[in-house]
């Protein structure tokens, strides 16, 4: 398996966004994942979201752990720096990267094995630190790359392709993220780009810890009737709470939609989230209600999707640490090194 560069035939009709880039400029190498893998649909949604957001591709840093899902960053945003770290430890690397340069947009991509099994600790801690990022778990309930063992998000009672039933309780990353202090938490489905693309855009605009749990069926190991993460199962049990429209602040549209079905949330950066209510009256800014709604869904065997929780004015790790506005990696000798005179004073105090 070697790297395959995608031919970059720039079609004149490709439309440029405000940043001057076409959708193509946000693509990556040709995917080597299985045809039909849910992860590829999520990559496509990330490409679409980045394009629509008019962000400069090189201003995004994409980080991942290890797994099929963690390979995905190769297949989107080819002009961005990427880092395939080690299994389950992407959150710490992303934390350090973010501390070094607060000016980039951080996109973390992980799998359910990567985040809920081996990496559960780091997953929890990055949420509670409030690292300004978009953290996407491509959740298939299995270890795709190591050929179909259960991960910690596999539902209790679900059956593996080999016919084994999972007797362990499953970990719900959405509940955990809310509990751990993530300030933007949503869930979606790889096959539902109308819901997913605006969610990713809103998450990227969110200036705090944004987490998206995206159910992403593994065609190789869970597209069979016993799996609760297969396309068919998720389609049948998906209960969308809301559809998100994401509008950047500078082009706020005030024409009202049907008032009974819309609420808007203004994020800290000024961008507007419109939540089109599909479910019952749902308030995404109420953390306690969000926890309750997710738990109710689980009890009823539903996959509750949409924007589950958002704190419109989050505080991130740099805020907590009171770091300077300039990126730390731009500070130079004169900024950092106190020099010989200060050292002489220190020496004098040590005699």
């Amino acid at each position: 398996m070697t790297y395959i560069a995608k031919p970059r035939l720039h079609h004149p009709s490709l439309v440029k966004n405000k940043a001057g880039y076409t959708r193509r400029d946000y693509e990556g190498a040709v995917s080597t994942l299985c045809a039909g893998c849910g992860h590829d649909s999520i990559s496509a949604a990330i490409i679409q979201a980045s394009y629509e957001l008019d962000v400069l591709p090189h201003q995004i840093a994409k980080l991942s752990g290890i797994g099929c899902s963690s390979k995905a960053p190769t297949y989107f945003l080819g002009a961005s720096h990427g880092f395939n770290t080690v299994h389950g430890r992407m959150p710490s690397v992303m934390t350090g990267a973010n501390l070094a340069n607060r000016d980039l947009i951080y996109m973390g991509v992980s799998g359910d094995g990567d985040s809920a099994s081996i990496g559960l600790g780091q997953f929890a801690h990055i949420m509670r630190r409030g690292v300004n990022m978009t953290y996407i778990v491509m959740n298939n309930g299995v270890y795709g790359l190591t050929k179909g063992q259960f991960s910690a998000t596999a539902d209790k009672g679900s059956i593996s392709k080999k016919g084994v039933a999972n007797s362990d309780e499953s970990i719900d990353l959405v509940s955990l993220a809310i509990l751990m202090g993530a300030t933007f938490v949503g869930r979606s489905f790889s096959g539902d780009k109308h819901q997913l693309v605006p969610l990713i855009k809103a998450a990227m605009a969110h200036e705090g810890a944004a987490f998206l749990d995206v159910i992403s069926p593994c065609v190789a190991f869970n597209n069979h009737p016993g799996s609760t993460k297969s396309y068919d199962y998720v389609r049948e049990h998906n209960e969308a709470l809301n559809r998100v429209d994401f509008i950047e602040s500078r082009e706020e549209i005030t024409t009202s939609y049907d008032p009974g079905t819309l609420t808007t949330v203004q994020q800290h950066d000024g961008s507007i989230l419109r939540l089109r209510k599909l479910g019952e009256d749902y308030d995404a800014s109420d953390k306690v209600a969000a926890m309750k709604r997710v738990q109710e869904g689980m009890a009823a065997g539903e996959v509750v999707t949409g924007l589950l929780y958002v704190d419109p004015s989050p505080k991130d790790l740099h805020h907590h640490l009171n770091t300077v506005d300039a990126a730390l990696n731009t500070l130079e000798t004169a900024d950092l090194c106190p020099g010989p005179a200060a050292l002489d004073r220190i020496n004098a105090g040590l005699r």
Partner: protein
Amino acid sequence: MTKPAIAAVNDFVVKFANVNGSGSASANELFARAILRMGVPVSPRNIFPSNIQGLPTWYEVRVTEKGHLGRRGGVDMMVAMNPQTWAEDVKEIEPGGYLFYDSTKPMPASMFREDINIIGVPLTAITNATYSDARQRQLFKNIIYVGALSVLLDIDDNEIKRLFGEQFKGKEKLLDSNVKALNLGRDWVTQHADPAAVKLKVRRADNVGDRIFVEGNNAAALGAVYGGATVCAWYPITPSSSLAEAFQAHCKKLRHDKETGKAKYAIVQAEDELASIGIVIGAGWNGARAFTSTSGPGISLMTEFIGLASFAEVPAVIVNVQRGGPSTGMPTRTQQSDLLSCAYASNGDTKHVLLFPEDPKECFDFTADALDLADRLQTLVFVMTDLDIGMNHRLCAPFQWDDKRDLDRGKVMTAADLEAGKNFGRYLDVDGDGIPFRTYPGTHPTKGAYFTRGTTKDEYARYSEEGAVYVRNMERLQKKFDTARRIAPQPVRYSSPKPTRSGVIYFGSTSPSMAEALDQLEAQGHHVNALRVRSFPFSQAVEDFIHEHERVFVVEQNRDAQLRTMLMSEFTLDGRKLVPVLHYDGTPITARFITADIAKKLGQLKVVSFEKAAS
């Protein structure tokens, strides 16, 4: 018959036996500093348990006009303040030595020894007569014994009062009450005891010079500030915690923007060592200087990430303040036993750069250097200190900084370089030193982006498992390691005044004891050349030194002769030539031990000196 009494001026060991958490630490340090202010070098060591309150702790002060800063071994005067350890403390005193104790409660003669000199001062009685508050009683009792000792040992009380003045500047009440306590001890001894009975004396000298008195952890933390570290991630573990805490303290004073008050650094107390090193690697990848400090068990946890930093070529610095291993081992004792686990940490063919500071001065220098080396070599660099250097005050040369020194960020391609059309291959060796160029994320809209991974890749960072591509990369990494061999701190040689075929190799905290041992050996007629190794990969000078001698003693503070193993494998040497000298009981190595072991081994080898052989 008069008892024997050890008589010594400016050359003796006083050991304080205390209860952990009783406030004795600052009183004992005061004692040591007062002697230092009299121009007489001291070398104090904390011996403490892995516990916060109630268990025994000891503080051993070697008073040494000659400036032998290694542990001497043996105790001339025991200040026995802990009833729990009384028996073993009394036993430890050299014949003719002195026992200083709290004589408030009468004790049976069986509790003492015939061959030592007893000095009882009713500390509790004096304290209780003056203070009613329990906390005050506890704290001032310590100052009272310092006062008593100052009379017995001829320590200038004005120096102690000056130290109080500096410590309690602006807090006059505290100053007065401490001076009062000091005088309580002094007055009692003057009125009730005979100071001449104690024949250990401090006499003013001029042997301290401009040296500073500082712990290695504090020094390394300052080195990180001067070396430009902006990100520090750590997880508490003895004996390294005080390093990250000192970094925080230094940054508070030195690294806040004058106008905005904002921090030019970020410190994260991570959830474990996996996260600490992950944060450091993320920051290093993104162009900030970052480090973590830890000890053995932390290194064990970090191992997978260490391989990533090395293979993906991300700068990172780990200060390993070594303690006794294996496993949780001896958390509060010292060893040099992580050499192999750091030098070859992680799966596959990995090797890492190690620096071995001898004292706090080199902790400062090498931590700053390590940050430069990590950027220059684009790899992970270990600073290998230990508890003995890290957690004890040590007299050392003052810190120095060249005003013209710039942070060496190594080979970084800028947007301008890329714009000018420079060929960028992330893992391409362009000038033969094995070090490629890198770009920071976000540098250029269309050029210079690459994917960083722990899997194998070609010169342009493209994933590849082809054998030839893999081998090329591994050979380049070897070449880079050879570059490290040239640019890391070079060994320091000490030559015997007489020609000799015997050599000794040592490193790190063994240094002061080794220097003393060399004097002792020389005095006994054993001529030995010495080489202090300061980094791994070993300089060519290390191999040359070994070839120059018939036998080379390798002195280390571990059981398995780890440095010797590395020398043998790195230089493909015959092991018989390298004679291990090993001390690993958790106490710092002493000159007495080294001298005795080398002398014994030279005897067994029936070594004839050069002159004799020639005659």
